[in-house]
């Protein structure tokens, strides 16, 4: 069974079902959505169980020809519907399953235009999960762009008072980044040749299934000697072929040997930088992070959960899936710059989080800070660093989902998110206090929780890496102290002391059953993954060792 396609198309079809079902079923939309995301989660867990830890290559591959374009003298363009997961995408797929399910539970409070909301939510689910599994760069880009639309409407229609500003800002920022990715995608597409299909075209083999490594080498040699007529060259978006320098046309822009210069700048370096900006906006790295606090503040709780829990991870995932394997030598050269931006994000995000009075903004900036660790880990180019980065993405996905849910709990009751409006909540809401304390401690990197593992491993990677100076990583480590500072300070201000809430007459109820059912599992996950980090590391290790051979 094409299980990955089911994962993508189940929510997409469900989205259509919701969009076209009559109004009398309105009350069931949320249950339907919850059911669909539950099935998604089940499939993700099934994938996780059946994922072979020892194989570095892609698994559960699915391939179909989608678009074939004759381009005259340029050859033939081929776009495939190509899906697969490896050690880098598997944790992300699992994370998507978890966060989307929790987000659906949290969406139960949506009380206007349910049809549109749940239909868009399911659309978002499908496109996000597709983004993590697409192995054709075009398909990846398609999902990458496409998820912006439901997100845009989810913030823009169900958001807070400044929703229009926030949603268009979110959209324009991300789209600006994705246009950079589009440029590189076109350049790669004009440079990279699909050796398998080209072999079929020039008659070396009759069918794709007959391909052997010898044939690929033969095609690559023919390519190097310019012996293949240009009309028969099949250009491709296939990410599996892009890391191999032999698949690049000899005189193309991005061939490592051609040394093309654009504006007196190496074309490959330029392409890498464009990709880094494109994905950096999504991550978000300072200084292109400013859309994030706005989007978070205006977005409804479940959308914030999805935004922080999954969408940010696509930036980091894009680095590892596209930028690093294709341009390894540039990545090595610019390691210092990338890590420097990572450290800047850690410190700048943390200082901002310290200064924020809005609880959601505080958490948004803490996200910026935590995603800086991802950049640090990836930039270090060590096994610990990259494994840690993937781990950090997973852990932050779980924890930030939890943090935003916690803010949502408070906001639902009082419609106030200012930190200085609360005092001594521990007296009235003990369970809520306990959950918040767990989430805060896990986020600030207390050992035995998942945040600790991610941060420690990325820092280890930073210290171990020959490419970056120790002092830079030392500064990043200082970010941990700041993290402890803003989390603990917030904890103290809101929960301790004498009970007082600004302009709120009623009584504050503790967690309801629905809230418990969202928060408890996440807390348990943060704990389990903190104690047994090999649950994720086993997935990532083989793939990342393979990736590091490129450097």
């Amino acid at each position, binding site marked *: 069974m094409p299980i990955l396609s089911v994962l993508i198309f189940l929510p997409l079809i469900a989205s259509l079902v919701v969009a076209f079902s009559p109004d009398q079923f309105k009350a069931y939309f949320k249950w339907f959505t919850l059911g669909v995301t539950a099935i998604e989660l089940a499939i993700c867990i099934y994938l996780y169980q059946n994922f072979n830890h020892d194989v570095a290559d892609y698994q559960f591959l699915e391939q179909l020809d989608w*678009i*074939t*374009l*004759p*381009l*005259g*003298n*340029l050859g033939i363009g081929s776009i495939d519907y190509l899906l697969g997961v490896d050690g880098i995408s598997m944790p992300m797929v699992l994370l998507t399953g978890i966060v989307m399910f929790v987000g659906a539970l949290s969406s139960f409070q949506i009380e206007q235009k349910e049809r549109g909301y749940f239909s868009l939510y399911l659309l978002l689910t499908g496109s996000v999960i597709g983004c993590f599994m697409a192995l054709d760069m075009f398909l990846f*880009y*398609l999902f990458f*762009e*496409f998820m912006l*639309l439901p997100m845009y*409407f989810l913030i*823009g*229609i169900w958001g807070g008072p400044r*929703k*229009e500003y926030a*949603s*268009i800002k979110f*959209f*324009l920022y991300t*789209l*600006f980044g994705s*246009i950079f990715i*589009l*440029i590189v995608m*076109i*350049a790669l*597409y*004009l440079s990279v040749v699909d050796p398998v299909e080209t072999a079929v075209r020039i008659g070396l083999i009759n069918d794709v299934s007959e391909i052997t490594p010898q044939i690929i080498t033969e095609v690559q040699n023919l390519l190097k000697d310019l012996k293949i007529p240009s009309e028969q060259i099949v250009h491709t978006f296939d990410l599996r072929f892009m890391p191999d320098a032999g698949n690049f046309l000899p005189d193309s822009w991005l061939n490592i040997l051609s040394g093309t210069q*654009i*504006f007196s700048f190496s074309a490959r370096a330029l392409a890498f930088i464009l990709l880094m900006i494109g994905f950096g906006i999504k991550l978000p790295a300072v200084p292109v992070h400013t859309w994030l606090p706005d989007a978070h503040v205006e977005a409804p709780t479940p959308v914030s959960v999805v935004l922080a829990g999954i969408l940010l991870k696509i930036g980091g995932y894009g680095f590892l899936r596209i930028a690093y394997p294709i341009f390894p030598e540039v990545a090595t050269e610019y390691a210092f710059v990338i890590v420097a931006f990572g450290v800047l994000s850690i410190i700048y995000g943390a200082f901002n989080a310290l200064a924020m009075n809005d609880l959601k903004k505080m958490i948004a900036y803490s996200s910026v800070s935590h995603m800086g660790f991802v950049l640090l880990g990836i930039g270090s180019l060590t096994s610990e660093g990259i494994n840690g980065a993937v781990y950090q993405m997973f852990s932050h996905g779980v924890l930030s989902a939890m943090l935003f849910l916690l803010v949502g709990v408070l906001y639902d009751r009082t419609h106030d998110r200012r930190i200085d409006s609360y005092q001594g909540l521990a007296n009235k809401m003990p369970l809520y206090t306990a959950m918040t304390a767990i989430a805060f401690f896990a986020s600030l990197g207390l050992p035995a929780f998942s945040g600790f593992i991610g941060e420690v491993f990325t820092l280890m990677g930073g210290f171990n890496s020959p490419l970056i100076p120790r002092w830079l990583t030392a500064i990043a480590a200082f970010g941990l102290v700041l993290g402890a500072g803003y989390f603990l300070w917030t904890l103290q201000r809101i929960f301790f002391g004498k009970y007082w809430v600004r302009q709120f007459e009623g009584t504050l109820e503790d967690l309801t059953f629905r809230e418990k059912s969202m928060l408890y599992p996440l807390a348990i996950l943060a704990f389990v993954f903190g104690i047994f980090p090999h649950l994720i590391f086993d997935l990532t290790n083989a793939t990342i060792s393979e990736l590091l051979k490129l450097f």
Partner: protein
Amino acid sequence: MNAIIALSLFGISNLFLGFLNNRKILLPATLVFILIALGLNFADWNHEYYWFNNMLKTNNLSVNFVTIILLSTFLVVAISRSFGDDDEHSHPAEYYAILLFSAVGAIMMVTFENLIMLFVGLEILSVSMYVLTGSDKRSLRSNEAALKYFLMGSFATGILLFGVALVYGATSSFDIHGIAQGVAKAKEQMGGAYGPLLYSGVILIMVGLLFKISAAPFHFWTPDVYDGAPSIFTAFMSTVVKTAGVAATYRILSISFPSVYGLWGNPLVYIVCATLIIGNITAVYQQSFKRMLAYSSISHAGYLLITVLAKRPETNSSLLFYSLAYAIATITAFAVLMVVSEAQAKNGKADESFEALNGLANNNPLLAFSLTISMLSLAGIPLTAGFFGKFFVFSDAFSNPSSLFKWILVIAILMSTVGIYYYFKPIIAAYMKKGEVAKIELSPLYKFILILTTTLTILLGLAPDLVKNIF
């Protein structure tokens, strides 16, 4: 090519149909006429014919262009709704006849083999458009637009004619292939340089044509004329006239003057950049949806001209694809704008501004959805036809080794991001702004056209190879 003859005859018979008291018959009759012309056009597929003493030539490229032109005309006619029930002020028979005549002019502009035919075609198209622009005769804006268009347009045609004369002086030929030989010979005699006659001739021809497709800096008439003309004719102007103009530019520059690329290529680079920047940046500041569409049409002229500039044999298919995607999306946008502004005018509210669209999605989901898809396509968001249009154009620019193209590409890409901002304004208005648009009753044909264009836009975004392989 029989399409030309047929359409002219149909136009005349349309005029006679106007004598009947039954206005209802005109719309279906015109649609049938266009479909017949479309069928006749397909008869030329896979043949290369010269017509009327080598005046016109049909080949697959021209058949494709004619198909786009006739398809756009068909869609525009289909959303015209017989021009309302106002007996005193509207003359549907004449309007339909003129639309058919101008389609003839447009077809001549994409098939001409002789510069005289280019001129005749351009004049047929332009004169028809002057009339149609002023057809709302009680409206001051419409009158102003028609006069403005006429004055400026006739100057532009004069300039074009002057250019044709100068080129004739330099190459002693009106035939576009003859000109190419003449240019080569002249270049040989001059030892690689080109004389002032040829130089000014080519530039003047270009100016005349670029005026018609409203490329900057010849775009000043566009916003006022688009704004003043009745929306239905603006839709026609921004699709058919633009496609024909770009096709004519492409045809003459790529066939007659490829050997003097530097002569027209260098100025065109600046024109493309200026068009992209002016069109997109000015569109951001518009308060009126219709005026925004006018500036958006200027900006799309810039993207279309990139393919002309890229000068590769493959670029004609990008040009075709882009024109098709642009035409379908623009007509959808105008179709929505027309019914909404009419409904709002009945309530005495704002007319063609973005505010007229506020809250459209609440009662009119189909209109809002079609509008969204068409805006996404114009903005170039994936899974719509417009994305692949941009994708092909950018690929063309990318594969050109000249370093100038990198600059053009940078500007084009930056400007398409700017475009997203203003194309989202109508979507924001329709879905997110508070407002009330009463349920608008649409005729079955109107609904069908909206669904058709929306489906086509998505279909071409999912499987562009369906038509790209034909082009």
